[in-house]
């Protein structure tokens, strides 16, 4: 069991942290103010995108998890 087993992995609370693409998409594509503009693409297509992302992001996620592991903060009790 590693020393950080009971630490929360905090990402993004330091300017040098890189958010994972997966997390960015999760938040950016979640909602947001809806204004009826001349053109608004609703996010009904997210499910389609998701299927592809699920495969592609596995490798991104693995790479970024490594990055996160080196930048995450230890638990502050």
């Amino acid at each position, binding site marked *: 069991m590693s020393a950080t087993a009971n630490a929360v992995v905090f990402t993004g609370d330091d300017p040098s942290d890189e958010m994972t693409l997966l997390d960015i998409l999760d938040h950016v594509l979640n909602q947001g103010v809806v204004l009826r503009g001349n053109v608004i*693409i609703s996010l009904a297509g997210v499910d389609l995108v998701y299927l592809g992302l699920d495969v592609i992001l596995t490798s991104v996620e693995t790479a970024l998890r490594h990055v996160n592991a080196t930048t995450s903060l230890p638990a502050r009790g």
Partner: protein
Amino acid sequence: MAAQLTSDGRVLYLYGITQSSPSNIPSSLIGVDRFTPIEAVDCEGVFCWISRVSALDFEKNLASNMENLDWLAETSVAHQRVISAISQITDILPTRFGTVFRTEQSLCKHVAKRVRGLKKDFERIQGADEWGVKVFAIQPASIPMPPARTGKDYLKAKAALLPSRKPKAIPREDLLEFEQALAGVATETAPAGNVSRGQRGLSFQTSLLVRRTKRKKLESILEKFARDWTRERRIECTGPWPPYSFVSRPDDKVRSK
């Protein structure tokens, strides 16, 4: 010239709306197309943060571009970067990804219709950030790979060692306790994870709207549960995010279909 139709094939990509126009937005900040600068347009006393982007990429081909994962990845990261930079200076209501207007006039017309509701939304998000919380099931101690005779056997054995896409659910009482603790520190919670719900081992996720004064409390709650769950679950927390998940109201959802 503000209301003139952009004649050079440009449309206005809207990032979000603020109540004040901070003067110290870095001039180096660039838009989703990675070229055009960010501008603030004053509409009915609120400020709309835009950049002038290609109509071809962001109007005509937006739907198909969103299915191009490379484009979506780059553009959503740029979208996040802009909103995040503004949110570090002043409270911003982020707009839904991919919201574009043809003219400043049409932008202001639509903002004017919503300006009263926007004021209420500003109150809700004032001094608060969004945080993402995910709980992952921890794999039992790794077992050695059995010898594989063929490539297919190897892949099957390897797949069996990966965390499940449908991990064992968190027991009801544990989940309830966790959710109640989070609700105690968050002013609102929202469902999360349209994109990452297929992540291996993911048992639970949520988005929280947390006042900046309560950030330490959030951290200590997460650390307490991480300690209690050491052997079974791992907690990941991302943030602070602009309040993406907390600016839509129920009537928006109906109208956006």
